[in-house]
């Protein structure tokens, strides 16, 4: 895919981060200079910082290791395509399960009261835009060689990034991209016990990248439930810190109260017998509950989860 001209290039020195406005159709390249360096990444909508990259919302579809051609979305209820990963080495280890490292982690684990960490690094970078430490969100971690076991515990293994490896991120709408050199890598294995610089480039939109952003938004940004602020019940951003209930507040939950209606289901003797045995074995509270579960499981299996909306077709590149 042909990008526009490079409009920005700089090198992030250890340990720092930089908020970079990247506009629709533009591409940020994050490149290893010497290799073996973990990179944390945040992103915020330039039009409304309350819309930001939400990797947790992407996990049900992408799993926890996004790869080339995956689309990363903003936070629900916006849930708009935000980033397209248009280039990434096959062996670039990503991780969107682990939270960025933070200061207290180093104090507890290693006794540091001042140690570089991604929470503080990103906080400092986004302060340029008047964002606070509370605005740092869950990170998309690049070159984060983690291993998760079946108990949900994880460990960091050797960083496998090579010099020259790069990741290209397409902006689907105008946003502040914030790449950060991970601050854990000198005393943890995250970056093989030494910090290294990272090169950042931004390429202007080309006809091809603009078209790609358009196609992604046309396909994956068209749902009625992708809400905008004007659809929010509370539209303004709270300006004080203390919480207090709104007098007389009445919630309006979706489809509340849910209305259950009984449907008559004719079962054969064999089917009823099976349902009774399943209920007796604990699969359901009673025969009706077993029938409902069985039907819903069949319905789910008949409609395999469609993941197309979270992937960029190769033909679009």
């Amino acid at each position, binding site marked *: 895919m042909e990008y526009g001209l490079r409009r920005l290039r700089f090198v992030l020195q250890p340990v720092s981060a930089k908020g970079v406005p990247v506009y629709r159709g533009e591409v940020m390249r994050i490149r290893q200079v010497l290799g073996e360096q973990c990179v944390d990444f945040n992103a915020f909508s330039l039009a409304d910082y309350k819309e930001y990259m939400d990797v947790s919302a992407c996990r049900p579809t992408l799993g926890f290791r996004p790869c080339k051609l995956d689309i990363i979305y903003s936070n629900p209820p916006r849930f708009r395509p935000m980033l397209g990963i248009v280039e990434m080495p096959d062996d670039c280890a990503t991780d969107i399960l682990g939270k960025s490292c933070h200061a207290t982690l180093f104090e507890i684990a290693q006794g540091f009261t001042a140690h570089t960490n991604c929470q503080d690094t990103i906080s400092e970078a986004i302060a340029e835009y008047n964002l606070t430490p509370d605005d740092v969100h869950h990170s998309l971690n690049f070159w984060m060689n983690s291993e998760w076991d079946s108990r949900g515990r994880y460990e960091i293994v050797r960083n496998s990034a090579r010099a020259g490896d790069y990741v290209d991120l397409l902006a689907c709408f105008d946003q502040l991209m914030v790449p950060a050199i991970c601050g854990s890598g000198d005393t943890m294995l995250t970056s093989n016990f030494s910090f290294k610089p990272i090169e950042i480039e931004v390429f202007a939109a080309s006809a091809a990248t603009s078209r790609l952003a358009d196609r992604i938004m046309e396909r994956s940004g068209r749902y009625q439930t992708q809400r905008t602020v004007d659809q929010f019940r509370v539209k303004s951003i709270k300006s004080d810190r203390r919480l207090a209930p709104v007098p007389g507040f009445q919630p309006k939950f979706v489809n509340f109260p849910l209305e259950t209606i009984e449907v008559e289901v*004719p079962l054969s003797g064999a089917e009823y017998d099976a349902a009774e045995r399943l209920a007796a074995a604990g699969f359901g509270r009673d025969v*009706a509950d077993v029938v409902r579960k069985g039907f819903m499981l069949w319905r789910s299996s008949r409609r395999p989860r469609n993941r197309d909306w979270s992937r960029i077709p190769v033909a679009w590149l």
Partner: protein
Amino acid sequence: MSDETVIVVRVGFNQQQRELIERTRKEGDAGSTDGEVIRFGFARWLESEGWCLHHDGASGSAL
């Protein structure tokens, strides 16, 4: 229990679940009423779980 016996079970579904049942019914291959659609899906699920629905009763693992 003979398989020729028909036993009607009343199964509760909320409006969201009924929307799925209706969509399944409109797809046309599972039955013409909601009850038939649910029975069809339930029977297919039993089969997928290894239940053998003999004429003279069901056999299979209880879970």
